[in-house]
């Protein structure tokens, strides 16, 4: 048992857990943030994706102890002041989900992808970047559409702000 401290969605949090506790279980069970899902548990599906120090990672394949001291963002940390993040809004507008199980991971992956590629995202890049995220429902088509729509909207917003 160890006491672990990290920043989650801008708030400093601590919890007691085993050294072997996975980050996803720390987030779901210690912190009660159940938006981050466990899909495959074999590092393949990406339902568990969160951001650690600004980069997308699979929280099912990372120990909570490895994340001690880090800055974590989960799906709950995206919407500011009760307003959906542009990526969340685009998934809603473009019907980018069916059952929704993969969606938190897809959205966190999309936010990371858009941050890295900005306005240069095209369909082929989005599909290649989704390599680590599996959806059993949608056939991906509307997920890709949602991400492209969000990238256009966010890229546009950035240009407008400059």
């Amino acid at each position, binding site marked *: 048992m160890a006491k672990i401290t990290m920043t989650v969605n801008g708030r400093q949090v601590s919890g007691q857990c085993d*050294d072997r506790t*996975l980050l996803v279980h720390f987030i779901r069970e210690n912190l009660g943030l159940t938006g981050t899902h466990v899909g495959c548990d074999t590092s393949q599906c990406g339902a568990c994706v969160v951001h650690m120090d600004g980069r997308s*990672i699979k929280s099912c*394949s990372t120990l909570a102890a490895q994340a001690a001291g880090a800055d974590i963002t989960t799906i709950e940390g995206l919407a500011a002041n009760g307003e959906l993040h542009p990526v969340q809004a685009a998934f809603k507008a473009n019907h980018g989900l069916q059952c929704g199980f993969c969606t938190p991971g897809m959205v966190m992956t999309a936010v990371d*992808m858009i941050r890295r590629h900005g306005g240069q995202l095209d369909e082929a890049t989005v599909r290649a970047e989704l390599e*680590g995220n599996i959806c059993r429902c949608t056939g991906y088509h509307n997920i890709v559409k949602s991400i492209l729509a969000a990238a256009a909207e966010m890229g546009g917003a950035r240009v407008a702000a400059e």
Partner: protein
Amino acid sequence: MYETNYHRASSIEDAVKLRQAAGEGKYLSGGMTLIPTMKQRLAAPTDLVDVRQIQDMKGIRVTGRTVRIGAATSHFDVASSAELAAVCPAITGLASHIGDPHVRHMGTIGGSIANNDPAADYPSAMLALDATIVTDRREIAAGDFFTGLFETALEDGELVTAITFEAPAKAGYQKFANPASRYAMTGVFVVRRDNGDIRVAVTGAGSSGVFRHKGMEAALAGNWSPDALAGVTVDASDLLSDIHADAGYRANLVKVMAKRAVAAA
């Protein structure tokens, strides 16, 4: 996962000391191989010594054509290094096709070569580039480092701290990715140096891991072009056969990937 004790090392010396003090300990870098293996209970180290945040083991340095990559440098950082792409785009391209973005954000070059998975990408680059593997106690030539399936020349407790190599005149890497895992079903890294030296290293195909193909090296020494490989035979008897591809299929892939790698170099 069985119980384990986690330690975060602050320096190379600290890591080696922590590892020595541990019973059946292991180094932990990106964890992208070790944590899934522990979850499946295929590994049960008593202690984990986390080396991912050791500053002396991170980052890329290019001095002239000499390249040094810290062992704890992530695949993403290798893939996105403009400095490295300027002298050896084949290795940044290789890193950009390992697994998926999340794996590339955590997984490290040191972890990949220490693990020496027969289907991993980096071992072929290390062998073809004639890289030197730097550890806490010595330097090992890549040709002596990869000794078999998941086997390396590393001693118990020996820590890989960096890899170094001279950027060659030309280098290319092409892999036929397993459609599910993205590991190399066959990958070929080719290198040509200004003095005429040629190296062809094959991953994903050999039944004892990464290997050099001397027949292809000889053919390319006479004529550096994809066509030069047309007449070379690839012996299937030492190649892997599994549910993904049998040895004969892999033998053909070795040739096709080598041709593409030369074309891309």
